[in-house]
């Protein structure tokens, strides 16, 4: 083979490699090696012309067709007889934690609502955790963000005032008593209770994340 023919074969193999990668075929190295072997066997060491190489490659066929055959999910894999538990891949724990924690921090926009929902669906749908762990995850993972927003720290710390009327009997002639309760603002940030709640929520969230991640990973399908 001279340089032209080597380049011809190289182009074919590069195309096949790209097609296999595109379809995320796990055995692509194996398939690539055996196709390379096929070409070398077919051409041998003798002098071959460009036409010979072209014929061998034509008979091998379209690289995309080979990749499609390799990726066809309808084919029963003899190794993969038992069905895997649902959503038990190794990416699931990290995805659940990231989706829920990050989305809940960013909840001011529309998209995080969808990703938050996706995280919760993934958490509850996955076979990696017990119902108790799922409940803990649902409550505790968004807790740091909820505390952050709820205490008015994440948003502009405006003072919020709520008018509350105390119960007055109808027809008693008494003037309705209205108390104005003001919350938020810097008062909460400075208050010991607010800080304590925030720290507790953050700790709870982080602990839940660590627990869900570690348990999830030990159960995940490798």
């Amino acid at each position: 083979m001279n340089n032209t023919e080597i380049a011809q074969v190289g182009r074919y193999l590069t195309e096949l490699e790209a097609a296999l990668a595109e379809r995320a075929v796990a055995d692509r190295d194996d398939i690539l090696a055996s196709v390379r072997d096929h070409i070398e066997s077919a051409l041998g060491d003798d002098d071959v012309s460009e036409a010979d190489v072209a014929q061998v490659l034509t008979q091998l066929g379209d690289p995309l067709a080979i990749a499609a055959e390799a990726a066809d999910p309808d084919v029963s894999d003899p190794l993969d007889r038992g069905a895997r538990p649902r959503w038990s891949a190794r990416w699931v724990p990290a995805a659940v934690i990231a989706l829920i924690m990050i989305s809940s921090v960013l909840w001011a926009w529309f998209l995080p609502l969808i990703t938050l929902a996706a995280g919760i669906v993934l958490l509850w749908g996955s076979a990696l955790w017990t119902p108790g762990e799922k409940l803990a995850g649902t409550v505790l993972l968004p807790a740091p963000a909820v505390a952050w927003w709820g205490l008015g720290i994440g948003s502009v710390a405006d003072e919020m005032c709520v008018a509350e009327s105390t119960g007055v009997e109808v027809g008693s002639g008494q003037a309705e008593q209205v108390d104005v309760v003001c919350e938020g603002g810097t008062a909460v940030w400075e208050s010991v209770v607010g800080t304590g709640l925030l720290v507790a929520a953050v700790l709870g969230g982080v602990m839940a994340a660590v627990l869900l991640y570690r348990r999830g990973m030990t159960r995940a399908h490798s």
Partner: protein
Amino acid sequence: MTNLRRGALEYCILALLREGERYGLDIARELTGRSLLASEGTLYPLLSRLRKGGLVATSWRESDAGPPRRYYSLTPDGQRAVNVFEATWVPFRSGVDAVLTGRPA
């Protein structure tokens, strides 16, 4: 139809290896020669799958001419699989043929 064809083809590959180990090009040529395989390249994903399933084993061998070649051979599991297929296929095929030609049962 594709699945039926492919399923049968996997057993044809195993059957070809019953007489002894063969290299990829040789298997590909035989299957295309018998019009069982449209393009030679699609053989390799099938071989890779059979190997992963433990039905076929591979080894690299020096050849008389040219670079070393990858040889495929049947494992004991592969042997059993093709025997089971044969026992099922033969009566199945005659049944299908009979239905297609309208022969009475």
